[in-house]
């Protein structure tokens, strides 16, 4: 690792708020990546007739595996109660939250949404369809984060290619690009996404739908970053080291990849946290309006929408709000620390 990068990292570690936010955020991301281990309708461990089963990952076990009548997937919560009877040697260990995000649970004698209850292990309550909110929050976060990261990667790739070409080659590429960018940045992004998203036929699979959404969002998201890259490459291009490289006969490809990009990309890192946060909020806004990822996929936007429909169930909005805001605040703190650590400018004034 080069010493400048090492110094920047050391500086990042010295900004305590950002550093701790980074650690907590990473912990949340890892925890959500392994959400199946702690939020799942499948048991963690089943001990049945002298054998151990680990049903969390992999193919499902039917009820018959555990001596039940039915052929569909075993109901581990029921099994646990059954095995708990005195004298039964078998046992089941359920995850912390024994529900999957898509499971509708109806309690006898009342209709959902049900308020939070430790006894029933619905720690944040359920939504109007009887699905566990904590489970939907965590799985929804995982999907939103994945989407946002994919969006960021595609947007940055496109923006860096366009911005670099405009800044480095200049002339007519730059001229056309600038006009295009001016037009593009004046088109209200949510409007177009809503028009386009509402025309994706409802019968296509969720994969195609998410892909289409991603494509539309990339097409309307690259302008800001491209503008930055254009200015940065334009500035670097006029530096002596690029001129020197050109004088000794280096081709444009080599100049761009060996000299230009390494010197412009370092600042791009400082944009990443903010781009991820924006991605998550735009997806949530689209989901909230019903144009995002189709149900029953868990999403924060859907939860917010349910919450504003059911004002009598404040736990829906409250959990979503605090879940979302915690993540966004952590991301912002990390982003701010990144910016401070990687920004070459330092401030000083002698008082």
């Amino acid at each position, binding site marked *: 690792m080069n010493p400048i990068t090492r110094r920047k990292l050391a500086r990042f570690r010295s900004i305590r708020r950002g550093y701790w936010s980074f650690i907590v955020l990473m912990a949340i991301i890892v925890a959500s990546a392994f959400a199946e281990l702690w939020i799942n309708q499948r048991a963690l461990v089943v001990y049945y007739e002298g054998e151990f089963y680990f049903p969390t990952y992999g193919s499902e076990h039917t009820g018959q595996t555990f001596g039940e009548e039915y052929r569909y997937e075993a109901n581990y919560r029921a099994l646990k109660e059954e095995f708990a009877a005195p004298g039964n040697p078998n046992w089941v260990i359920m995850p912390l939250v024994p529900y999957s995000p898509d499971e509708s649970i109806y309690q006898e004698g009342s209709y959902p949404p049900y308020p939070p209850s430790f006894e029933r292990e619905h720690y944040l309550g359920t939504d109007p369809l009887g699905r566990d909110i904590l489970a939907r929050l965590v799985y929804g976060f995982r999907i939103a984060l994945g989407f946002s990261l994919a969006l960021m990667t595609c947007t940055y790739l496109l923006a860096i290619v366009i911005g670099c070409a405009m800044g480095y080659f200049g002339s007519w590429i730059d001229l056309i690009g600038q006009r295009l960018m001016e037009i593009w940045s004046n088109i209200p992004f949510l409007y177009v996404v809503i028009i*386009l998203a509402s*025309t994706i036929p409802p019968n296509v699979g969720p994969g195609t739908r998410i892909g289409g959404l991603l494509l539309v969002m990339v097409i309307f998201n690259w302008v800001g970053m491209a503008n930055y890259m254009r200015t940065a490459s334009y500035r670097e291009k006029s530096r002596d080291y690029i001129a020197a490289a050109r004088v000794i006969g280096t081709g444009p490809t080599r100049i761009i990849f060996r000299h230009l990009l390494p010197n412009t990309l370092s600042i791009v890192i400082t944009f990443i946290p903010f781009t991820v946060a924006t991605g998550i909020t735009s997806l949530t806004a689209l989901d*909230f309006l019903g144009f995002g990822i189709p149900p029953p996929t868990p999403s924060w936007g859907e939860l917010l929408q349910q919450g504003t429909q059911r004002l009598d169930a404040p736990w829906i909005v*409250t959990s979503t709000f605090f879940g979302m805001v915690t993540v966004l605040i952590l991301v912002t703190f990390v982003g701010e620390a990144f910016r401070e650590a990687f920004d070459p400018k330092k*401030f000083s*004034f002698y008082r």
Partner: protein
Amino acid sequence: MKVYFLKRLLLVIPTLIGVTLVVFAITRFLPGGPVEQALMQGQMADGQESRSSSEGIGLAPGQIEQLESYYGFDKPWYRAYADWLLQVAQGDLGKSYRYQVPVTTMILDRVPISAYYGLITFVLTYSVCVPLGILKAIQHRTRLDSVTSIVVFTGYAIPGYVLAALLLVFFAFQLEWFPTGGFVSPDFADLSFSGQVVDLIQHSVLPLVCYMIGNFAFLTLLMKNSLIDNLAADYMRTATAKGLSFRRSVLNHALRNSLIPIATNFGNALSIFVAGSFLIEKIFSIDGMGLLGYTALIQRDYPVVMGILLISSILLLVGNIISDMLVAAVDPRVRFD
């Protein structure tokens, strides 16, 4: 300089044409347009009686063509766009497909609502953010700075509409401190003047909080960073060296220079007349510009969509130019040539 700004103003026109052309083309090529919408409504009205013709729609053969020509969908898209452009050039934005009302009237009806929220948000944000930014810059890396930073970043991280949902549930529904929505009460006209003022304020507290929260961080940090930049400038060292007190050197030199980026934002205030987040307006059911645009989109009321797009783009583009003019006015170093 005059030539430069004239050129910029003229360049607004091609950009506007580009923006409207893209959106117009999108509305043209996508399924589910006004003709289909009208057909669907016709189908629902016909109910069971609809004859199952070969097309599967209960309409006489000539009717689809009739609908298409009514909505102008029988012409090729470039002709239709040229027609629309010509109409706009004469100051007519067309009629809403759905309500048969001139689009101009629909937009003008919403301008007071947008201007009300926009203006108050604008004034409140500036009157809090500029002093706070100055304070934070002078107290950089002190306890005051870090505490206000946490507040500011927290505000920045919370999207306005998410906060709106929370405020609606707690302060409007559970505690009943504020009404759950609307711009004013339905019986607004019957209230006395003081009653009207109270009613308006009650309705606008929650939306205003949501509108302000996002801008707040941006402006405060802009002010802070720009002042910090100037505090580290060479002329500040000179000012201190020649014996000026810190207070005087900040007020007389650094502050004046650091207000330049703030001035650049003033031009964009032009947009407040048509602004309005449709997410916030939807949650608080305020019938403003944002909600108008959103419902028009959902109902495929394209003349309204195009009208709002055109007007907001004009204000945005002209606002940008005004911003640049302001920069040139306050900063003699800036030369646009």
